[in-house]
């Protein structure tokens, strides 16, 4: 039963991250996702300190504030100070992440988070935190939070499909049609920050990045259609969670680390497949050309 709970939570988180990440990859903003997932840390720690609990709502508020702050800082360094965008991203998130780690070590007694958990989460403890009403065991609490998050992400993508689609592929055309480009940009960014925070406890900062970027990138290699890319992303997300869990059990290591490794293996397999396929096609094409000649 434990295995199922962990795999279920892992899959739900991976799907939510992957669906949002698809848009980040297509918008060439993968590293902004990386930055946000690091930068929300001080927000989470401050929320712990002020609310004194692991409550989800204060954490969401703290993280949303930091997510917006990150985007603003990057834009400030980039637009006002004319710093390269890469460097703006790098400075901003390392700084905020460092503040988060310093806060954690300063208030180690009051904050129920440690440095390792920040990096690779505690998905192994998911089955320990059960939601029990009366005598009724409803399963792990995290499962409901992750499930609700996936519903929100799905709602945003289904209802906002047209806006997200158009602003992703053709910003000028979208704004010519009167679609608010900035609105969809910030909606996406704040969804990414919120998803990051909820995933944070389970899989940690770096592995959120793996879930945000790797499954969508894998799917993108196989298709040019946004819809099939989203479906494939979900498939790769689930596969990474299932095989990742058993890999971790096999060699007795971090579950989240193993899930990221499997996502990477899947990517390399698909990458190899596309390279081979292209080579075969090219040779086939050459043969045909020879035949014609």
């Amino acid at each position, binding site marked *: 039963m434990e295995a199922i709970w962990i795999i279920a939570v892992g899959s739900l988180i991976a799907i939510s991250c992957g669906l949002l990440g698809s848009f980040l*990859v297509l918008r*060439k*903003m*993968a*590293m902004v*996702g*990386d930055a946000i997932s690091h930068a929300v840390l001080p927000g989470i720690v401050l929320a712990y300190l002020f609310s004194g609990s692991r409550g989800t709502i204060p954490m969401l508020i703290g993280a949303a504030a930091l997510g917006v702050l990150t985007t603003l800082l990057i834009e*400030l*360094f980039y637009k*006002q*100070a004319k*710093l*390269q965008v*890469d*460097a703006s*991203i*790098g*400075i901003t998130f*390392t*700084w905020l*992440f*460092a*503040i988060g*780690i*310093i806060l954690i*070590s300063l208030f*180690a007694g009051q904050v129920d988070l440690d*440095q*390792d958990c920040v*990096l*690779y989460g505690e998905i192994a403890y998911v089955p320990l935190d059960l939601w029990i009403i009366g005598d009724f065991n409803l399963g792990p609490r995290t499962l409901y939070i992750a499930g609700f998050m996936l519903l929100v992400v799905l709602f945003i993508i289904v209802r906002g499909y047209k806006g997200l689609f158009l602003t992703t592929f053709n910003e000028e055309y979208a704004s010519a049609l009167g679609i608010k480009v900035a609105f969809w940009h910030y909606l996406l960014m704040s969804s990414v920050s919120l998803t990051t925070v909820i995933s944070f406890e389970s899989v940690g900062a*770096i*592995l959120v*990045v*793996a879930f*945000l*970027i*790797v499954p969508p*990138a894998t799917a*993108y*290699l196989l298709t040019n259609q946004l819809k099939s890319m989203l479906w494939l992303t979900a498939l790769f997300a689930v596969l990474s969670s299932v095989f990742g869990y058993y*890999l*971790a059990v096999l*060699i*007795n*290591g*971090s579950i*989240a*680390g*193993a*899930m*990221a*490794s499997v*996502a*990477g293996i899947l*990517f390399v397999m698909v*990458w190899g497949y*596309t*390279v081979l396929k292209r080579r075969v096609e090219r040779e086939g094409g050459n043969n045909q050309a020879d035949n014609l000649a």
Partner: protein
Amino acid sequence: MNDTIRFLSFTDPNVRYVVLGSMILGATAAMVGCFSFLRKRALVGDAIAHSILPGVCLSFMISGEKDPLWLILGAIFSGWLSLLMIDGISRTTKLKSDAAIGIVLSVFFGFGILLLTTIQHSGNAAQAGLDKFLFGKAASLTKDDIMIFSGIGLFLILIILLLYKEFKLISFNPEYAKVIGLPVKFLEFLLATITILSVAVGIQAVGVVLMAALLITPASGARFWSDRLGIMIIIACVFGAASGFLGSYVSYIAPAMPTGPWVVMALSVLTIGSIWFAPKRGVFSKWRTFWKNKDQILTENILKLFYHLGEADGNFETARSFQSLMESDRFRAYDLGKGLRKLKKRNLIRKKDGQWFITASGLKEASRIVRLHRLWELYLNQRLKLEPDHVHNDAEAIEHIITPEIEAQLASELDSPTEDPHASKIPYPTQS
């Protein structure tokens, strides 16, 4: 407090080694980072740093000990592998380099975490302290380790100094470097290896997670102080060394603290401070110049208005009410009020009984601007053969910029003309 004194007096030989070592590592990374920064590869450093973790873990699994040379070998191996993968992904697929960096960074790091936790759970006693690679711990390094790591750091600095010109050229203009026959491929390989090595030694002090900052942040901050690469590198090295110093200090007085975040904190404060406050290129300085220019244009335009009104009634000394100035329809009331106050402070305009007058020095300044405007209109009309009704807007902008030298040149070029294309008189200062 006693700890601070003991730390700063360097009586403890261990402190001396740790401090000096951290400073060298900080300076090395900062120097290398300047080249990454200029080649617009700031985030590649981040990917290398994260990717080194599995290499370090693997070499530990193979050798069974924390021998620094083995660890560095593992680091070079996985660092190079990550660079090749990033390059391969962005070359052979439709994914862009940012996605390639993100994939390599997160997967390598995830794999590293998997190995690290496996080693930790294996109960091998020698692994204790391997997790210090995550966030860094300068003070826990032994004297021998520090000697090796700082030795490598100094060696890297030496190579960069020796090949400074070549590296500078491939950073700024690789095509030109190729044309003049430099081995660009080899130099790029060398620079990448230096970057990986500097990351491998730097993580001893700050850890893999925040290592990127040690490369990118000092270079970014230094960029705001100078346009010259040499000076930029020196400033970056000072930033790096200063933060290495702070990191080892924190490590000494608060043994439970990881050093990496403090090093990054110090660096970020220095760099973000530079971004805001640096003279000329800093954000505040840019804003100040912007507002100063805006004020200059506003006040000069108001003076010009006085001149035009005076020219129209043939009397420059006439009193003007705020209302009559507003009638020109050229200013918002708020701006006009502000501009008049500024002009009054500079004694270019007087106020009496709620009426405004232009002073003698104000009139001199006003005629200077009108003269520049009309000289320029004439120049455009005569030399560029523009129609007289097309030249006004251009002159309106340039009149605030022309220097006395250019003015003299214009006047001599046009033989000190007396009338502009609209047959208005060009005012010259009266010889007195």
